[in-house]
């Protein structure tokens, strides 16, 4: 029995690993950048280590650095966290079926449901004979470990850096530009992408730089609800 379980695990691990190689590169790069960013902001490596291991959400972790450097405002922090992470609600909705009946694995699968893990577990075709549960668990685990180790190494090595890191935080903008483009390529019509950009830009100009996220989410939700018929009629949304 033990031998059989081991066999299932190993074949799932072997099938899952190749899918995570690009994520390794991306997460080490971004994780390092995040660790270094925390380091140059004056935090010891324990901060990126513990924050990446517990929050496990790249964009929010960058924002949390700013929070830690600002006056204590827990309610605002919670709201911001919910707003930034709100998109995970929809990853969850998309994975309801795939994560069904996963037993204890489900807890970690849900905890580690970041953009990249979602993309793989949602789209990867698990080879025949490989256990889907273990496959998705290993994808989630690998990505998790890449991120935590990258952030920790960045936090440790940041102090050794002698070059000017001004502008390094642009890595976050570049990451979202690329993810946005990938989503754009996937979709035949771009109504929803444009709704996102226009709503956010409009709310930013009307409400200023510090309190436009909630109005933006409301705008996007209303626009999507209001234009559901024409959007669905036009089709072309990514699966």
């Amino acid at each position, binding site marked *: 029995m033990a031998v059989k379980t081991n066999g299932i695990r190993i074949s799932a691990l072997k099938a899952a690993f190749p899918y995570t190689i*690009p994520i390794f590169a*991306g997460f080490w*790069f*971004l994780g390092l950048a995040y660790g270094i960013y925390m380091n140059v902001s004056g935090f010891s490596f324990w901060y990126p280590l513990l*924050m990446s291991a517990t*929050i496990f*959400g790249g964009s*929010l*972790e960058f924002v*949390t650095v700013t*929070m*830690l450097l600002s*006056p*204590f405002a827990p309610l605002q*922090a*919670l709201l911001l*966290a919910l707003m930034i*992470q*709100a*998109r*995970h*609600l*929809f990853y*969850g*909705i998309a994975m*309801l079926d795939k*994560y069904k009946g996963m037993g204890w694995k*489900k807890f970690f699968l*849900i*905890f580690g449901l970041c953009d990249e893990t979602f993309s793989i577990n949602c789209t990867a075709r698990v080879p025949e004979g490989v256990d889907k549960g273990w496959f998705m668990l290993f994808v989630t685990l690998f990505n998790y470990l890449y991120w935590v180790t990258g952030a920790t190494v960045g936090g440790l090595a940041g102090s050794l850096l002698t070059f*000017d890191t001004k*502008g*390094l935080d*642009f*890595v976050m*903008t*570049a*990451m*979202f*530009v*690329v993810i*946005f483009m990938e*989503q754009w390529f996937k979709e035949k019509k771009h109504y*929803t*992408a*444009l*709704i*996102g*950009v226009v*709503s*956010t*830009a409009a709310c930013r100009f009307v409400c200023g*730089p510090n309190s436009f996220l909630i109005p*933006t989410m409301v705008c*996007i939700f209303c626009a*999507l609800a209001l234009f559901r018929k024409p*959007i669905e009629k036009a089709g072309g*949304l*990514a*699966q």
Partner: protein
Amino acid sequence: MTLLEQVVTVGVCVLGTVTTRALPFLVFSEGRPTPKFVQYLGKALPAAIFGMLVVYCLKNVDLLAGSHGLPEFIGIAVTAALHLWRRQMLLSIAGGTLCYMLLVQLVF
């Protein structure tokens, strides 16, 4: 901020994240069909959200003062051009960031 305040701040970030990841599984439990409108939202939202995140990153850009957002605009253009050219996420992100860093350190 005291250490306790830091722990609370990180704690609520964990709470917020876990909530958004777990809520759909708690609300739409196994064995019940997901409402049509929720299914539609699941498909329509990702593109809108990524658009929102790009603009969110640029929230502190002032078009009327300082460098008028030029380094950001060029950095994004380089990122996008690299991505159109090679379609390699890592290369596009690294190239765009490097370009932006050079711009804000040496030019603007």
